[in-house]
């Protein structure tokens, strides 16, 4: 497998990728069972559903898909015995540029996902679940489907799981090449067989009116896998790996201009950006210097090399004080990156060195968003295309004096004015590239 070091880096702590990195580890159920597979499920079935949700809450598990919502809180929105059908849908539509972790879980360790899913379903009274896999992972869909059949044959799925009286059916559902389906309400529309236009919240919070208008949990692949380990380790032990409010490990996917791009499973807040780039990823290419970092998938706001942030930290007397923190000293956890004006998002860290042209990079992202806007809301449908046209024209013909102002104006009129977060996702790159690298736009004015 590409992208994973044979021996974990000292900064790593492999939980999700613990078995995947072992030589000879295969995705079949027999291999899984010889590595302690389905033991967490057996344990879960002896607990009360509420106890499992309390454990996930105490573990401080945040969603690993991008929004970072606390998983235990999301689950507790589902009323266990409200008499309605409930569903869990696993979001395996991994499409955020810069993110490539779920791909490996699906291909190399599908039973880990199924075990986590069975535990989650037991805790929330779910008996029918779908795993929505993007169709660009054709082999993953076959591997996961085969794993479902294996698990059913051994009694870990299906009717009366391990004699507990609990029933669960899981099916694989394949997407069809649209990034928007990673947005949870869009994904549900897609799963219902409709055009995947995101639903407006309120009222269509998935926990209230989700799949087939029933209470539904949508969780990322990695999030669901963590559940198995919370059960195995205990919530306290698991939470201890991370920071308060951001427990466990997070898979950081690093791409771009570093010596060792790849994914690294690191305790939440366990590295600074500088350690991640220079230590874990072997630094930049020889003779290069850092220029820009997109820290949490392509939608996250870009950071400029040399930036210094004022972050609130606890001072010696317990008072909150401002502390000057250079870019490379930012810890890679949800709250620190939020305080630095960006986000940890899906864990996709893209590194660009001094040879890179920021207008070119922004144009690449603008073309992505223009292609992927679903077209439901006018500001996004028109605005994403306009931004893409302007940056393409700057690349081809040079900039006009008011291009930067116009780009900002377009972006400012998308963010906050759309049904779903795609509006922000497509506006943030333009807004942040303009704010952080204004000189690169100015120097192109002919």
């Amino acid at each position, binding site marked *: 497998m*590409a*992208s994973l070091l044979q021996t974990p880096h000292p900064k790593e702590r492999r939980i999700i990728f613990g078995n995947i990195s072992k030589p000879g580890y295969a995705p079949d159920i027999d291999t899984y069972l010889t590595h302690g597979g389905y033991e967490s499920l057996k344990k879960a079935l002896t607990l009360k559903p509420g106890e499992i949700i309390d454990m996930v809450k105490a573990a401080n598990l945040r969603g690993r898909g991008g929004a970072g919502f606390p998983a235990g809180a999301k689950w507790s929105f589902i009323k266990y015995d409200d008499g309605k*059908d409930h569903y869990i849908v696993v979001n395996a539509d*991994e*499409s*955020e*540029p*810069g*993110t*490539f972790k*779920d*791909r490996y879980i699906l291909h190399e360790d599908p039973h880990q996902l199924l075990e986590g899913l069975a535990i989650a379903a037991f805790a929330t009274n779910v008996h*029918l679940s779908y795993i929505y896999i*993007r*169709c*660009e*992972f*054709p*082999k993953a869909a076959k591997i996961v489907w085969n794993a479902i059949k294996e698990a059913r044959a051994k009694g870990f799925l299906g009717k009366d799981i391990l004699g507990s009286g609990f029933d669960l059916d899981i*099916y694989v*559902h*394949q*997407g*069809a*090449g*649209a*990034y928007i389906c990673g947005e949870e309400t869009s994904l549900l529309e*897609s*799963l*219902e*067989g*409709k*055009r*995947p236009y995101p639903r407006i919240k309120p009222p269509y919070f998935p926990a209230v009116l989700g799949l*087939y208008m029933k209470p539904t949990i949508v969780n990322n692949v990695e999030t669901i896998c963590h559940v198995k380990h919370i059960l195995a380790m205990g919530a306290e032990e698991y939470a201890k790996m991370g920071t308060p409010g951001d427990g466990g490990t997070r898979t950081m*996917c*690093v*791409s*771009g*201009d570093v010596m060792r*791009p*790849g*994914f690294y499973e690191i305790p939440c807040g366990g590295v600074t950006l500088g350690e991640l780039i220079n230590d874990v990823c072997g630094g930049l290419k020889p003779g290069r210097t850092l220029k820009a970092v*997109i820290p949490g998938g*392509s939608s996250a706001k870009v950071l400029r090399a040399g930036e210094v942030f004022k972050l609130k930290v606890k001072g010696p007397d317990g008072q909150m004080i401002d502390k000057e923190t250079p870019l490379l000293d930012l810890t890679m956890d949800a709250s620190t990156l939020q305080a630095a004006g960006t986000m940890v998002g899906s864990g*996709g860290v*893209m590194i*660009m060195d001094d040879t*890179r042209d920021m207008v070119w*990079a922004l144009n*690449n*992202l603008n*073309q*992505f968003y223009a*292609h*992927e806007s*679903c077209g439901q809301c006018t500001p996004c449908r028109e605005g994403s295309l306009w931004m893409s046209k302007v940056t393409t024209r700057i690349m081809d013909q040079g900039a006009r004096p008011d291009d930067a102002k116009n780009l900002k104006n377009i972006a400012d009129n998308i963010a906050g004015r759309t049904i779903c977060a795609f509006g922000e996702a497509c506006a943030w790159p333009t807004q942040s590239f303009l704010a952080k690298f204004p000189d690169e736009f100015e120097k192109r004015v002919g």
Partner: protein
Amino acid sequence: MIDTTTRQADAITPEFVAEAQELISHYPVSKRSASLPLLHLWQNHFSYIDDTGIEWIAAQLDLTPVNILELVTFYPWFRREQAGKTVIRVCRTLACALAGSYEVKEKFCQAVGLDPHEEHHGFGCAPPTTADGKFSVEFVECLASCGSAPVALINDDLVENIAPAGVSAIVEQYK
């Protein structure tokens, strides 16, 4: 161009129908949910989706054809024209572009004999395809393998860390 001379639905086999029924059974709450699975089944079997395919799928799910057509025109994966036997999808998005995917795509076009600058004419159309029908080459958006960029999805195979000089050897494997 949309092919209207053959009717794909005339070539449906009992095995195909059984597979469709199996897929529909995965959605006990609403048959409509089987629209994407049936479209995939159809395109995998016939290579593209003609009018009779849209009508047939709609009929299985008690829908009107427009409910299926609106999916075919939305999702980039589906096409209404014959594509090459081997479809080469080169990732275009940032991490791959940083690693040279534009050059890689050009090399793929040259290796199979396509004009690298030929435009893909949009949703539903086949990507640029060689005259012998063997290869199609297109850019697609992020394939989620940024750590081993640049990458391409060739039929069902992910090919990683593609060097421009290695492209013709990759193409040979699919000839």
